[in-house]
């Protein structure tokens, strides 16, 4: 069984930006520094570092190599990199911390979507034989998923719009959010035209640039660095089959499984932060976690991924948003979620608690 005395003791994120002027590594340099500063440790004290990014998002092979410069890799450091959202980088660093020979670790994630056409980049993530040549963009696939959800009778277009309105309202008080509107109304949203019937533009995420970093520590080290650390009580990720036609895209079995494996028992949560990049996915994820959209749990108080979607950082941002609420005392138990692949194919759950 993994140890449960590892905690987030420092974090930082850039605002989610439509087109950031700094390069990806320039976004990371101050972000990593700020997370380390919040943890109150020296850079050289960090026992292990793991980064998450995507070459193809940045625009070329080995793009991740320059991100190493933000980690302060001289003298040499113990370091690894995942071609995935920073949430998976955090998972690897959390795993490495379990071994007891080190007591702090750093993880970060970064990506700039603005230089590319994300619709074209992410079509290249699909099965190269049966799907990629058709170039089904993420919005089209999400449109199919939304239709399947509507046909199942589990949701209506009004429910989608309500998710968006909630996101805009919540984002209004989040300085890092990109899309915010305290006055967003469901009726006004429903009056908008379709982009991919039954999805409207606002049901889709913005194009975003951003970076995020966390510092974790173990046991008493965590207590000494942070008054109220965000303890990681469970951490798991699971993947489903790839082809959208061979799995039930109206539900997220891998989210439910990851939550169970992370030790989530269905008990009360103060906050849940979900990487639902399309509004119907928020409903799918809530159902898979056994949560109601209007229940006692605050859903995406940051505004979630609909309010800012820096791909490769957005999942770790969810964990940071949940951890921030534990650390500031406004929540005691929170669940954060990250996703990868088309239509929620792969999902990660991190369960956080105060002490």
């Amino acid at each position: 069984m993994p140890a449960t005395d590892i905690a987030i003791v420092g974090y930082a994120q850039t605002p989610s930006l439509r087109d950031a002027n700094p390069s990806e590594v320039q976004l990371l340099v101050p972000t990593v520094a700020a997370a380390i500063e919040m943890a109150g440790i020296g850079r050289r004290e960090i026992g292990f570092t793991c980064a998450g990014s995507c070459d193809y998002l940045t625009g070329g092979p080995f793009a991740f190599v320059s991100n190493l410069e933000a980690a302060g890799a001289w003298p040499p450091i113990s370091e690894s990199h995942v071609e995935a959202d920073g949430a998976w980088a955090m998972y690897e660093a959390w795993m490495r911390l379990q071994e007891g020979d080190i007591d702090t670790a750093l993880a970060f994630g970064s990506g700039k979507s603005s230089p590319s056409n994300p619709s074209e980049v992410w079509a290249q993530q699909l099965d190269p034989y049966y799907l990629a040549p058709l170039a089904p963009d993420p919005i089209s696939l999400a449109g199919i998923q939304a239709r399947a959800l509507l046909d199942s009778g589990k949701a209506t277009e009004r429910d989608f719009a309500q998710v968006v309105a909630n996101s805009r309202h919540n984002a209004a008080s989040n300085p890092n959010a990109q899309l915010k509107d305290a006055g967003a109304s469901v009726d006004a949203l429903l009056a908008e035209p379709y982009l991919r019937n039954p999805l409207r533009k606002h049901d889709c995420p913005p194009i975003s640039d951003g970076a995020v970093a966390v510092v974790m520590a173990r046991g008493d080290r965590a207590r000494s660095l942070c008054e109220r650390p965000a303890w990681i009580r469970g951490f798991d990720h699971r993947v489903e089959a790839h082809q959208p036609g061979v799995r039930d895209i109206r539900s997220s079995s891998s989210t439910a499984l990851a939550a169970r494996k992370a030790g989530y028992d269905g008990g009360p949560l103060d906050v849940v932060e979900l990487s639902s990049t399309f509004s119907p996915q928020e409903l799918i994820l809530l159902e898979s976690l056994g949560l109601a959209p209007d229940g006692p749990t605050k859903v995406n108080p940051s505004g979630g991924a609909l309010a800012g979607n820096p791909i490769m950082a957005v999942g770790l941002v969810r964990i940071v948003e949940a951890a921030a609420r534990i650390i500031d005392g406004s929540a005691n138990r929170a669940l954060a979620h990250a996703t990868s692949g088309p239509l929620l194919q792969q999902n990660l759950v991190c369960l956080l608690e105060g002490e």
Partner: protein
Amino acid sequence: MTDTAKEDLVMEHLVTLTYHERLTDNLNRFADGLLEERIIGAKCPSCGRVFVPSKGYCSLCVVPTTEADEIEVPDTGIVTGFTIVTPVAYYGQTKTEPFVYASVRLDGADSTIGGQDVTGVPQSELRAGMRVKAKWKPREERSVDGMTNRGWSGVDGVVESFEVTGEPDAPLDEYKDHLF
């Protein structure tokens, strides 16, 4: 199409992805300088090392550098290392003849500029330590269009090559820690 079994088992897919990114502020100023025959670097406020071009931060101290830290360096320097590359053919490759790929440490800089052509000496006589000076392209031919935030194509749209000056070679100490 010939109906051989093997051809049935191959699929061709031309993948094209295009990226447009604003040049970062530090590189934008570097590009401005190049068009005026000036080479701009940044001096780290913490360790004093000079990086050409500026990265916008010092990778050793991990502190940001700003416009205030930027300084001009001369267009003369030392070849610190090189390869004579026999080009291999691949999609988009236009090189067909062996070419020089050299690193140059400009005087006053601590970093090197990679991938430079060195002229004024036969390829077989090129050696590390040779002193060189930038041979600027005519003003009307200069372009910084190929520059990117990922470090490709630093000065080659503006500097034709680095020409050996014929001065005595620099002592090993001035380039041995700057191999690439």
